[in-house]
């Protein structure tokens, strides 16, 4: 009888390096995150956290090495990975001249959802932006943009959620709501990769930790 093979890791880095011009943002990084576990990424500004998240999200390609998400290569199987991963980034990916609702409807249509307007409405309720759903994003505060960006991430229903500084620009209520959303993601089986400077909050949410220093993994 054939032995059942183990599921591929949620995230696997094989000797990954990324160079911008002459500067190495990541240098020979190897790591594996099993499915069902969540990862806290820590490190000072410029240590490579954002670059790593953008590599996993396929927004960037590695200079050397290989990045895999659930067994799929982030370069050669880019489209497969993009359907499994969602990124909450420093940039919100939002159109300033569209309303909150229109921004979500555009994404819902791209994802081929059955009732884009309804899905957008439900997510606006979830992130507490119902009252401002018809306001252009240009009029939003930084915290409101972050909430809308989270709604965008939730719409994708990803297998792996990449969260780059999710607590930044949020008020205490917003931080609490974000923690709740992250817990719900984890409970629903989503692998969360979280980069934050708020280490205590991050440790409470993640089982694994990877500390970066000048693009290399070091002991925290």
């Amino acid at each position: 009888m054939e032995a059942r093979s183990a599921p591929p890791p949620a995230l696997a880095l094989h000797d990954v390096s990324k160079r911008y011009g002459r500067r190495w943002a990541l240098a020979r990084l190897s790591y594996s995150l099993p499915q069902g576990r969540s990862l806290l990424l820590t490190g000072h500004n410029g240590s490579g956290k954002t670059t790593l998240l953008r590599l996993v999200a396929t927004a960037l390609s590695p200079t050397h090495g290989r990045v895999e998400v659930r067994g799929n290569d982030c370069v050669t199987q880019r489209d497969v990975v993009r359907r499994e991963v969602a990124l909450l980034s420093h940039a919100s990916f939002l159109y300033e001249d569209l309303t909150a609702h229109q921004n979500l409807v555009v994404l819902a249509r791209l994802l081929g959802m059955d009732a884009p307007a309804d899905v957008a409405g439900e997510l606006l309720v979830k992130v507490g932006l119902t009252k401002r759903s018809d306001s252009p994003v240009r009029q939003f505060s930084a915290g409101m943009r972050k909430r809308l960006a989270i709604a965008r991430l939730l719409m994708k229903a990803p297998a792996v959620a990449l969260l780059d500084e999710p607590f930044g620009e949020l008020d205490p209520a917003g931080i609490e709501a974000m923690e709740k959303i992250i817990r719900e993601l984890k409970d629903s089986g989503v692998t969360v990769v979280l980069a934050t400077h708020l280490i205590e909050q991050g440790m409470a949410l993640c089982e694994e930790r990877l500390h970066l220093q000048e693009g290399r993994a070091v002991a925290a």
Partner: protein
Amino acid sequence: MRGARPISLLKTVGVLLAKDLLIEWRTRARLNALIFFALATLLLFSFAVGPDTKVLARNAGGYLWLALLFASVLALGESFRVEQENLTLDGLRLAPADARAIFLSKAMGNALLLMLLGALLIPVMVALYGVTVTMGLGSFAATVTLGCMAISAPGTVYSAIASNARARDVLLPLLLFPLIIPALLAAAKATSLVLQGDPMNQLGSWYGLLIGFNLIYWGLGFLLFPRVIED
């Protein structure tokens, strides 16, 4: 999320084109500025040449296409500036939206904008330069459509390339203008024939050149755009 499934390339083009047109509509001040810029260019040609209506009428086609070309640089640059703000182009790529659909929607949006501009400039040109449309508005519409499409396809690719450069405002015309010369020449010649008549039946060959140019650059854009916008 409920009902999510990959959509076809054409449907993606439709969603993205609708999004771009909605943004254009919500930022009408930008569109108005473009129209006034093109009108001012037409007007300036008439001032520069002077009151000689024969010269103005003879070169009207060239002036129209120069006004459209200059305005196109603003329109093309703006179409990717919108996608630079908040890195929305990354948002589209990661959604994931097919890069070829992004090209087609942007190029079609830019072509539509230029056609609208062309339609607004024609009556002004007729009034300013004292020309008459000898061959009918159908031929004029065909010329404007083919010419605008010919500017739009390479312009969209170069606009995407230039959008990441520091000197993007200079880089786009620097890349686009030399490449567009055959199409500009064909569009200007075809416009002159539509205005002044075509006793030698030359219009078809200029249309042929424009159609060939469009086939090549829409095809190249479709094939190469994924390499342009991916890391």
